[in-house]
C-alpha cells in the first residue's frame, strides 16, 4: 500500500507541567487509536529551539556551516510526523484531518507521498 508522510506543524505546545498537557497528548492518543494500523511510523520532535541546520558550503568536503535554529523561521514549526498507509490522497486526507495539529491552535499538517524507491 502507498505511503504518505504527514508533517505536523504546530504553533503552541504545552509543557508536561502545564494543565493542558494531558489534553494535548490525549488528542494524539485518540488519533493513534483512530488511525490504528494505518500508522507505519512516526515521531514527535522537540521544539525548534533545539534545532540545528546543517549545510556544507563548497561541495562535499567543503566548509561545515551550522545554523542554530530550524531551516525556516516561521510561526509554525515542524513538531513531528507520521508515516501513514493510504490508498490515495483522499484517504490520506481523511486520516490527516484528525491529527490534532490540523484542527487545534492554528497548526497545519502537510501531506507528501513517499517516494517509492
Amino acid at each position, binding site marked *: 500500500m*502507498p505511503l*504518505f508522510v504527514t508533517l505536523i506543524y504546530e504553533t503552541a505546545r504545552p509543557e508536561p507541567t502545564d494543565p493542558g498537557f494531558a489534553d494535548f497528548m490525549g488528542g494524539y492518543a485518540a488519533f493513534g487509536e483512530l488511525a490504528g494500523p494505518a500508522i507505519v511510523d512516526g515521531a514527535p520532535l522537540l521544539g525548534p529551539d533545539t534545532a540545528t541546520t546543517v549545510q556544507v558550503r563548497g561541495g562535499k568536503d567543503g566548509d561545515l556551516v551550522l545554523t542554530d535554529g530550524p531551516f525556516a523561521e516561521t510561526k509554525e514549526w515542524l513538531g513531528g510526523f507520521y508515516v501513514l498507509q493510504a*490508498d*490515495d*490522497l*483522499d*484517504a*490520506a*486526507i481523511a486520516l490527516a484531518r484528525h491529527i490534532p495539529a490540523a484542527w487545534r491552535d492554528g497548526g497545519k499538517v502537510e*501531506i507528501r*507521498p513517499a517516494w517509492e524507491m
Partner: protein
Amino acid sequence: MEGGRVVATLFRMTGDLDVAEDAFADAAIVAFERWPVDGIPERPGAWLTTVARRKALDHLRREARRQTLEQQASEALMATDPDPLPYHTVRDDQLRLIFTCCHPALVRDAQVALALRVLCGLTTTEIARAFLTSDTTMGQRIARAKHKIKANRIGIGRVPRDAELSARLPGVLAVVHLVFTTGHHAPVGSELQRVDLADEGVRLARLLTDLMPDEAECLGLLALVESVHARRSTRLDAGGEAVLLRDADRSQWDHDAIAEASALLERALRLGRVGPYQVQAAISCLHSLAATADATDWVQIAELYGVLDGFGANPFVRVNRAVAVGEADGPDAGLEVLATAEGTDGWHFAHTVRADLLARSGRADEAAAALRAALACAPNDVDRRLLEARLAGLTGVPDAQGVHDHRR
C-alpha cells in the same frame, strides 16, 4: 467528448493521465487510418476504448523493468474488463476523471487548465492562448498538475461516495463556470468573448447533468450558462463594439436555448434544493425572457439578487444587486447598495455601475470621475472603447445609461 470518455476509462486503469492521453491519441490515429477503409464501427466509443486499452497495455509492458504489483494489477484489470463497458462503469470513470481534474488539492488555475486539456481535449497551445500565457508556462502548469495527481494517486482509490461527491460538487461547478465565464467575458486581450471556450463550458455543464441528473445545482449551472450563451450573438455590433443588454436586438437571441434553459431551471427547482447557480439562472432567464428591455422584471431580479447575496457575501453579487435595485427602486437606492460592496476598487464594472447610477441621479461630474476610475482598471479593449464613448457622451447626454450584459 468521446475522447474524454475513453481517457476516463484509461485513467482508471493506469492512474496516469499521460499514459491515458497517449493511448487515446494512438487509438485515434488507428481510427483515422481504418475507419475510411472499414467503415465507422457501430459503437465508436467502445471501439476506441478497446484499441486504446491495447495501446496502454503495450506501454505498460514496455515499462516492465519496473514490474510492480501495481502494474500487474492494471494489466489484469485491462485484460479482464468487459467489452463494451457497462454504462455505470463509463459513468463512474467519467465522474472519477472530472473530480480528479477538479481536486481541491490542485490550485484553481491548474484545475481549469486540466479540465480543458483532459475533459475537453483542447491542446496546450489552445489553452495557453485562452489564458494569454505562453505555451511553456501552460505546459508546465499542466505537467505539474498531472505529476501531483500521479504521485498522490489522486482518483485511484474507490469512486467517491454520493455524499462525498455532493461535498466536492461546488468546486467542480466553480471550475466549469470559470471555463464558461472566461469565454463569455475575456478578462484581458483584444476580444470581448471567446465563444470556443464558452462552448466548452456549456458542454462540460451538460456532461455534469448527464452524469448527475438529480443534482439541482448541476441543472442550475447548465440553465445559467445556456441562458447567457443564448445571447452571445448580440454582445457585439457589426463594427465589433460592445452592445449593452438593454440595446440588444432580442430577435437575434437563440430562443430555443432560452426555452431549454427555462425548462432546465424548472426541473432543478422541482428538486427542492435551491442553490446559487439556480438563482443566477433564474435572474438570467428573466433577462432572456423579457420581450423588451423595458419589460424586464427588475423587481423580481432585485429580490433574487437579495437571495443570492444570502448565500454568502460576494462583492460581485452585491454590485449586480445594486444595478437591479437601481432599476427597481431608483438610482439612489442602487447607490446605497453599491456602497456596501467591498473590495471592488480594481473592478471596472463596479465603477461603471456607479457612473450609471450617479448620472441618473444627476451627478454628472462624479459620474465622469467614476468612468475614469473604470478606465484605469484596464479591462479588455472592447470594454475600454465602450467606456471611452460613454465618458465622451456623458456631458452631452447625462442619462446615457444601460446594463452591461456581464454576469460573474
